[in-house]
């Protein structure tokens, strides 16, 4: 893993904005869907926008709105929403070694979604310390605003948009796996990492195909970690 500051940028926040653009391909269509579903579930446009602004976590927002519409008890709605988001606890410590002393960082963690984490985990170590805050602010704000804007658009005109451009919502989300592929490709450095990463991808994919998308990320990562340690044990045993 490269931990060196490899290059500096003239305007780091602008670079953060530019590098987060691929996230929009995934965020905007999903946010439009959320806005549409929230309105259909009985929320107003403003309420849907407030939910996207404050909770700002895709899968759990769909669950939140769905459970409310189904009449589930509110305490259960909150518990389930938080349970889905519990995977976020490992994100900030993973990027903490590259964060500077600024007091803005804790507040910026509101923007640390799965996708922003993936981007920041790769890019922050490559940037000089003085540019990391600007870069992260640009990237995280673009992602956040696109999620809020997409929700508003979906709530106001989601039905019309999906009817007029049905393929757009199907094609643009491929920007997300393409981005993650580019971020992960340099990490396939040896057999051990390749097996661990490959098994994480495969398990998460299989779980998602079988309708267990909420458990797919933590379980996929756990299986990958198991694989990582098993390969180490195997090579240690052979060494003896």
């Amino acid at each position, binding site marked *: 893993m490269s931990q060196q500051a490899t290059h500096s940028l003239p305007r780091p926040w602008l670079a953060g904005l530019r590098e987060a653009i*691929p996230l929009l391909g*995934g965020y905007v269509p999903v946010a439009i869907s959320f806005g549409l579903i929230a309105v259909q579930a009985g929320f107003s446009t403003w309420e849907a926008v407030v939910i996207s602004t404050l909770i700002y976590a895709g899968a759990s927002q769909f669950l939140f709105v769905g459970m409310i519409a189904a009449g589930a008890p509110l305490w259960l709605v909150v518990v389930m929403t*938080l349970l889905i988001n519990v995977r976020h*606890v490992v994100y*900030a410590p993973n990027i903490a070694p590259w964060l500077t002393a600024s007091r803005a960082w804790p507040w910026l963690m509101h923007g640390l979604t799965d996708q922003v984490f993936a981007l920041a985990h790769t890019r922050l170590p490559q940037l000089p310390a003085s540019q990391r805050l600007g870069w992260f602010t640009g990237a995280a704000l673009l992602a956040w605003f696109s999620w809020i804007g997409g929700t508003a658009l979906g709530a106001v005109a989601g039905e019309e948009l999906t009817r007029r451009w049905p393929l757009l919502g199907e094609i643009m989300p491929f920007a997300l*796996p393409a981005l*993650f592929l580019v971020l992960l490709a340099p990490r396939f450095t040896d057999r051990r990492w390749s097996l661990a990463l490959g098994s994480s991808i495969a398990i998460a994919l299989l779980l998602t195909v079988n309708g267990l998308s909420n458990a797919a990320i933590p379980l*996929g*990562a756990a299986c990958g970690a198991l694989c990582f340690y098993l390969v180490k044990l195997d090579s240690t045993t052979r060494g003896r």
Partner: protein
Amino acid sequence: MSTALWLAVLASSLGTLLMRLLPLLWMRRRLERLDDGDDGFDAMPQWLGILGPLMIAAVLGTSLVPTTVDATSWLATAIGVLATLAAWWRLRSLGWPIAAGVAAYGAVVTLLG
């Protein structure tokens, strides 16, 4: 929305924010305690450093599942992945490989869909 519903939104928001924020404060304290001039990465628990890339891999796995699950979408996904990797192998940059992947995926969906 009723007051109770607003409270549910606020509780979910606050809980999610704390799950993103509190581990950062914990890690910062740990880094300060262990700070002996080494790279901060060395102060990170080993399991945490391993889990980071694996979480990204799992996010990739979930995002590879197409919106509409059928043979055409899976074929488009496979071709999109190959196009992305080929462009990355050649250019080693962030933007163009993504554009190539989306274009390849879109072309297959449009032609065969």
